[in-house]
């Protein structure tokens, strides 16, 4: 099927352009730095707290893992957008796409083939990075977070959405404009999420409600920050959850409805991307 030829081509291109190698090496470096930091911090705490401080130790483990996952989520977002932002617009502007489209292939197969190819890479990257630090913590301390797989799935879903938005932009805009669009939307969702989070602590009910609404509305435009908050909720310790606030997660977290909305959002964005690319004069 032509779709899989394009997926394979997308993968092959990333491999040939040394993108996969760079991501792998820097990913390993990230894991080493995290591992060293984690090891020595926990070792120090183990000495100080002794066997009586298991609760505090687990909180520290959770906190460090949460910090690691926060960075992983950020890196996944970056990698997703940077690798995919040029794939359509670049081939359109250079004319490389002409020989592809002039074959017995439908445009949606090209777009979905690319999406699938990048989605495959993202999957591996999420597993390597997120799975890597969780695995390290488990092997080092025998500690695991409440719902590790849920968290990885949500980070993954977030990346798949950004990938779809990046392809949607690429079907209409130049590479630079597309980059501005995707990171711009991500930034809006990001600040919206923080406003909601900080607003949650305001004593004034009205102000707090406004802040919450801002957060909800921005997450409807781009659910990426909401998905991270839900992922953070899945990995945070029950104690931190009871306290209601850590630097990396929120007291309130998005419901299951938000996740369903995100999946629908992904489908709609992909549908629009196919439609726009289909109508595009090349």
């Amino acid at each position: 099927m032509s779709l899989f030829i394009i997926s394979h081509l997308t993968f092959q291109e990333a491999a040939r352009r040394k993108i996969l190698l760079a991501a792998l090496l820097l990913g390993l470096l990230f894991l080493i730095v995290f591992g060293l930091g984690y090891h020595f911090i926990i070792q120090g705490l183990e000495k100080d707290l002794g066997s009586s401080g298991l609760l505090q130790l687990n909180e520290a483990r959770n906190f460090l893992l949460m910090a690691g996952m926060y960075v992983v989520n950020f890196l996944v977002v970056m990698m997703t957008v940077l690798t995919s932002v040029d794939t359509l617009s670049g081939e359109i502007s250079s004319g490389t796409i002409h020989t592809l489209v002039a074959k017995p292939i439908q445009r949606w197969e090209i777009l979905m083939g690319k999406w699938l190819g990048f989605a495959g890479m993202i999957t591996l990257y999420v597993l390597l990075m997120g799975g890597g630090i969780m695995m390290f913590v488990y092997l080092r301390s025998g500690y695991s977070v409440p719902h590790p797989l849920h968290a990885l799935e949500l980070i993954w879903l977030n990346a798949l959405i950004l990938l779809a938005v990046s392809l949607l932009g690429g079907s209409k805009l130049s590479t630079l404009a597309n980059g501005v669009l995707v990171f711009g939307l991500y930034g809006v969702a990001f600040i919206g999420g923080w406003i909601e989070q900080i607003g949650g602590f305001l004593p004034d009910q009205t102000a707090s409600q406004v802040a919450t609404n801002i957060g909800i509305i921005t997450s409807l435009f781009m659910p990426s920050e909401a998905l991270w908050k839900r992922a953070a909720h899945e990995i945070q310790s029950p104690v931190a959850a009871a306290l209601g606030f850590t630097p990396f997660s929120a007291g309130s977290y998005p419901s299951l409805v938000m996740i369903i909305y995100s999946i629908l959002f992904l489908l709609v964005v992909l549908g629009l991307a196919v439609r726009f690319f289909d109508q595009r004069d090349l």
Partner: protein
Amino acid sequence: MSPDSLAIETHGLCKAFGEKVAVQDLTLSVDRGEVFGFLGPNGAGKTTSVKMLLDLVSPSGGEGFLFGVPLTDSTIRKRIGFLPEHFRFHDWLKAEEFLALHADLYHIPKVNARKRISELLDLVGLTPHSQKKLREFSKGMLQRIGLAQALLNHPELVILDEPTSGLDPVGRRLVRDIIHDLREKGTTVFLNSHLLSEVEVTCDRVAFIKRGEVIQISSLQSLVEGETSVEVRAEPLLPEIVNGLTKWSQNVRVDGGHLFFTLDSEKNIPEINQYLVEHGVEVFSIHPQHVSLEDLFIQIVGTDGGL
């Protein structure tokens, strides 16, 4: 799809990009097995027309068919080969991989593809470079690999968009030879070019396009058979003898030992030769020259180039 449908048939295809009309009323019919030249100055809408034929650009109006199948039906492109202008390809692929990719896209079974790829690499003279990345290719080599790519599927119709622009004489010769081979095999060729000498030696019929409009379609035969200019080297060219030539031509000119005149038909040349010999003129050479396509192009399109 009927077996005798035309290779290309369009009715009133047009394309506007916003206010700018790139193509208006493109009505063409190209027979199977024909080598068809599409001529016009830069910016006349040639590339946009080609892109509409391949569904790269969707027309603002009109309709078109390849072998009786609507342009928008992607399955028809299984039978088409296309070489885009500028020859921009996935340059991180090796030559052989590039052809394998496009063979896959044509759904050619792997075993057949391997054989076809080595045949084509041979044809375009790139066998020694099959393991080189396209990034390392010169423009001429890219054109060759692009041509090979357009022939992978033994196409019934090959569309070449400015296949020789910016190429050295060897590259142009290759394109010409390939077009000749295709004609022999009965393949239809649609050649979009502004290099008239190319068209002159390869095409059966030509369409002239200016400001997005087809202004004339003629067979090359009828175009060049029309007027013939003749140069004769002979002596002595006495005025009374020269005057006698006005029977055949109104514009006779003498320049040194050379006689120049134009004829409506080549058929009069033997008569003229006989006339000269009978009047004691020694004829060293008679050189009939057809009006070049370039002259015709200027006549039809105008010197402003349609700008």
